[in-house]
């Protein structure tokens, strides 16, 4: 009963970090009452610098710097276990998506993570080719992050097993796709 009521309350005029996260859609950080179910099921809680319920509380308390610079937001695997089990519809996974974008915009990305570089290469590949071509993606990622030898031993057996074709497929409509990416970056405004 209380869950149903909590879910229907519209939270208005929330300021600070919580307000920004809420405005970006999906997440409801101010509904969290610290039951810690999210952290119990989180696959990376044990290794990250913060646990999901701690991040939510820090968002409530407007601890912008610590949250946006945390390693946790980049170690989250987006498995959605937290969001599925949350009794308050906080949706910590959606909250993390918003925090990642805000962390990048604010130039606060945690030093050790390669995830933003990977995401950029991934999306640029989609923009140009329409599809991901794994071999090309890995080569570009390794060049960008200078991790030339990590997992390089996997390539020969993957090639032999037909798991890494040398040439990927691509689809036409490149100029239309580029325009689509440009309009998305502008927020879909008219």
């Amino acid at each position, binding site marked *: 009963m209380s869950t149903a009521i909590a879910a229907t309350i519209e939270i208005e005029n929330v300021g600070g970090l919580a307000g920004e996260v809420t405005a970006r859609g999906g997440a409801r950080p101010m509904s969290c009452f610290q039951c810690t179910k999210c952290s119990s099921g989180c696959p990376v809680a044990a290794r990250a610098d913060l646990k999901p319920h701690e991040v939510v509380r820090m968002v409530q308390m407007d601890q912008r710097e610590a949250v946006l610079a945390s390693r946790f937001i980049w170690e989250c695997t987006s*498995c959605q276990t937290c969001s599925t089990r949350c009794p308050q519809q906080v949706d910590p996974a959606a909250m993390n998506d918003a925090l990642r974008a805000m962390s990048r915009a604010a130039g606060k990305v945690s030093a050790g993570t390669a995830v933003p570089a990977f995401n950029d290469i991934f999306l640029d590949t989609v923009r140009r080719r329409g599809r991901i*071509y*794994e071999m090309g993606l890995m080569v570009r990622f390794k060049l960008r992050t200078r991790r030339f030898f990590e997992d390089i031993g996997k390539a020969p057996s*993957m090639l032999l097993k037909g798991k890494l074709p040398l040439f*990927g497929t691509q689809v036409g409509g490149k100029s239309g796709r580029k325009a*689509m990416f440009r309009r*998305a970056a502008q927020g879909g405004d008219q």
Partner: protein
Amino acid sequence: MSYVFFPGCSLDGTAKDYHRSTLAVAAKLGLEIPELKDWICCGSTAAHSTDPLLADALPAKSLASAGGATVAVACAACYSRLKAANHHIAGDAAVRARVARVVGSDYDGRTPVRHLLEILSREIGLARIAQAIRHPLKGLKVACYYGCLLTRPPEVTNFDDAENPTLMDRLLETAGATPLEWPHKTECCGASFSITDASIVLELSNQILAMAKAAGADCIATACPLCQLNLDMRQKDIEARFGRQYQMPVFYFTQLLGLAMGCPAEELSLGSLVVEPRDLLAAKGIAC
């Protein structure tokens, strides 16, 4: 019901074996799944963790071109992104309008999206599957592994019970195998961290393999290219890191179904598996 197939990028690369075995099983069942023309990448985690609008627009572009057919999906990650885009677009007029401006045409978010597991279990039905079984997988104990994105979040995917899905279990049971009860059906394997921080994948995949072994599994069955790759290809690294040796074959569920339906091994690309399954299959008297 008519279908178009959205294979997704992995099925043309690391998951070619999933692609081939899917087509082999579909052919045995008379299920027509022509490929959706000019589909584009769903955007995956890279899109939704960068820009929510782009994350809805990429799937919308493909889904709008399905021409009224149901979109059949094999990859759990594509499935999740296509379903999420539909959920956002159909549920919020403002999102629909913004996506329409980005894509350049309106899409209502109502193209049906189904995973192969749903199509085979619910639309083809277990009775028809049972009729197609030629060589039951007798004595094969399988840990059915669903991963994250088929079931979560349930209000978006509406796939099966979010904590204890059984669609794959029932399918493989129909194929004569023995699906096991085990607690890691929907734990995360670490997904695309295989490229950005493999230590996460080694830790999480090790836990899944350890639990499958503890449950008495002969093998694991998967329905997602990233899950399969992590659990199969990373077993050697896991051995080096944690000193645990599993030698646990990790199949796509379509490969096991195909074996039971009498598809030849080449059609199922069994040779693409990193952990060799042939000894196990021979020990169980399963021809391939």
